[in-house]
């Protein structure tokens, strides 16, 4: 099943992992060192993030490195930006409507 990105970032640990690998690709071991959870727990988070296509694996020799899919993160931002803009244009319209009503009352 294709998970969705919002489910991926609904979890605080997964968000922390995203922040961690935003600047550099890291091995699961290196990532796990930053958390108090078990290696298994971290692996599970990484699997979910991979299924959501938020991170991708890169094999370098015998090591697997995890790296952030920046374009996917952008997608989320874009969606939210749309929503924000919808409200912004609504509110700007409301400003003028309110002003008109106010002036008519005088």
């Amino acid at each position: 099943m294709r998970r969705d990105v919002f489910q991926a970032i609904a979890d605080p640990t997964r968000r922390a992992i995203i922040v961690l690998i935003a600047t550099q690709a890291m091995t699961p071991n290196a990532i796990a060192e930053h958390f108090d959870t078990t290696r298994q727990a971290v692996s599970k988070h990484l699997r979910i993030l991979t299924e959501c296509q938020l991170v991708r694996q890169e094999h370098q020799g015998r090591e697997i490195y995890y790296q952030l899919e920046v374009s996917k993160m952008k997608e989320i931002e874009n969606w939210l930006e749309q929503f924000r803009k919808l409200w912004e244009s609504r509110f700007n319209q409301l400003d003028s409507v309110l002003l008109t009503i106010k002036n008519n009352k005088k």
Partner: protein
Amino acid sequence: MNNNLAFDFSVNKENNTIDVKREFAVELPLVWDAYTKSEILDQWWAPKPWKARTKTMDFREGGRWHYAMVGPEGEEHWSLVNYKSIQTRKNFTGLDAFADAEGNVNKDMPQSTWEINFSDKGQVTLVEICISYDDLSQLETTLQMGFKEGLSKAMEGLDELLASAVKSK
């Protein structure tokens, strides 16, 4: 019109809500009316070039607002808001859903719960809107609807975004 009114938009993924705060430069009763009277809502609720058109409005607990967003080509997208609780000039909550022209709720589409609070800040009125979804994937669907409905046509820089959204599907 830029008069430095506070506007704050944040997504809270801990509890699946979108929080919107905005100040308006008029006294509270006017703002309250603008959110609760359909003849005023129709003037601002839809982003241009879309227009909101109310079919029925019954603003009371248990009542509902049934309206269409009407596009430049005359296309209609119907919505329903069911009002749950109302404290006059303080706050109201409602359930927002997609519907058809007859007022039947579209169960396949996400629904969200709205809570809107009004506070008197002297010269300005602060409106706080909290939109909550059962789960944020519904938010994704809602925003995609936004694409489909062309709501976003009214907004800048959109063609690019649309292209990327379509490609990633």
